[in-house]
């Protein structure tokens, strides 16, 4: 008794030949799974052939439809790599999932041929097959989503790094041009990198330029004040520059108290003030 007689679905997957691949390729080119502008047909055919081989291996290893079992490791890894590459190539989730779902039609066709007129067993085989492909398809979509999330996460952390450069304007003067909205996590990064640079360079004055900050609300102001307080504790001075007229109005309307913090309209003014202060310190300590 061969496997085919025991379980027609796995029989189909085991004894498949090029005719199944051909039928699948036809189904794929007819559906949304194939994007001729994004992937070459030969490449698609190669991927399809590999996936069928993985399916065959899984069918041979055991008759389980539990795709998270050890028998399906190869197939799962393959789907994962395909999802990741498709997510990068710009396929939509539907197009990626259709890669698996389009295999249903040719497999069903084959099952119909194998099982024949026995309606009862055909129905149960079709149910088993459809469950299996649904699981594989869902797994593909999940992997696709996961790889997209990875990309987003990486970009977020890169953005965080890129958007908080601390530059040395002069001997003893640091500048921190802020671009984008300040939230709690960004403020933390900004504060840490600024304080660390103050220690590294021994700078006495830090200019925080908020030209690139679109809005200032009470929370942003509070974050700024915290940064300034920490800077002062370390023994350096802060100047806020780049305050646009709109933001000056907002600050007053909100009733934000900037205390004794020096504020300047432009970075140029702030630099001039900083230089003047440095000179003062230098001359008075010399005398």
């Amino acid at each position, binding site marked *: 008794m061969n496997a085919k007689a025991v379980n027609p679905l796995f029989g189909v997957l085991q004894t498949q030949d090029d005719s199944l691949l051909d039928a699948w390729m036809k189904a794929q080119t007819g559906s949304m799974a194939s994007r001729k502008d994004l992937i070459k047909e030969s490449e698609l055919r190669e991927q399809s052939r590999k996936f069928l081989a993985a399916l065959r291996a899984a069918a041979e290893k055991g008759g389980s439809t539990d795709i998270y079992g050890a028998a399906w490791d190869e197939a799962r890894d393959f789907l994962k790599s395909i999802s990741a590459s498709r997510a990068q190539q710009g396929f939509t989730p539907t197009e990626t999932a259709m890669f698996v779902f389009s295999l249903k039609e040719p497999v069903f066709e084959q099952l119909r041929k194998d099982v024949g007129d026995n309606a009862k067993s055909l129905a149960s085989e079709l149910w088993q097959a459809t469950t299996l492909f649904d699981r594989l398809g869902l797994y593909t979509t999940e992997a696709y989503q996961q790889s997209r999330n990875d990309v987003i996460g990486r970009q977020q952390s890169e953005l965080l790094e890129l958007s908080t450069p601390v530059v040395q304007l002069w001997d003893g003067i640091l500048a921190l041009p802020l671009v984008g909205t300040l939230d709690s996590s960004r403020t933390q990064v900004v504060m*840490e990198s600024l*304080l660390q640079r103050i*220690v590294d360079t021994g700078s006495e004055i830090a200019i925080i330029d908020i030209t690139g900050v679109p809005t200032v609300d009470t929370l942003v102001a509070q974050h700024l004040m915290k940064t300034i307080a920490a800077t002062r*504790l*370390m*023994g*350096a001075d802060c100047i806020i520059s780049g305050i646009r007229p709109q933001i000056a109005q907002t600050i007053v309307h909100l009733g934000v108290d900037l205390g004794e913090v020096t504020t300047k309209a432009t970075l140029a003014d702030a630099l001039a003030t900083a230089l003047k202060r440095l000179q003062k310190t230098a001359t008075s*300590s010399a005398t």
Partner: protein
Amino acid sequence: MDRIPILKMGPYLLVTIQVDMHDELALTLQDDLTNRITATRAKGVLIDISSLDVVDSFIGRMIANISAMARVLDARTVVVGMLPSVAITLVELGLHLDGVLTALNVEKGMALLQRA
């Protein structure tokens, strides 16, 4: 019992905290320092905390208190060399140490005392 040494340099007192500050030690320092200021008639106190990497709200308040006490005895206090992590912690604790002078290192702190 541990004590934090207080060094005299001209009209100034120099305190370097190089061990983990615990509450009792801080109270002892407060006692010793006020006594030394009166005894030496010091004009300024410089506290170097560059080796202090852990602070809590109590130690933070002690620093503010010591500074206020010295002020009453007519001496200015400069806290120098605070680590970034310590500064962030104090700000998060809501301790802004208003009225305490700060400087980046001992050299700059001395210059600040001489100006004050």
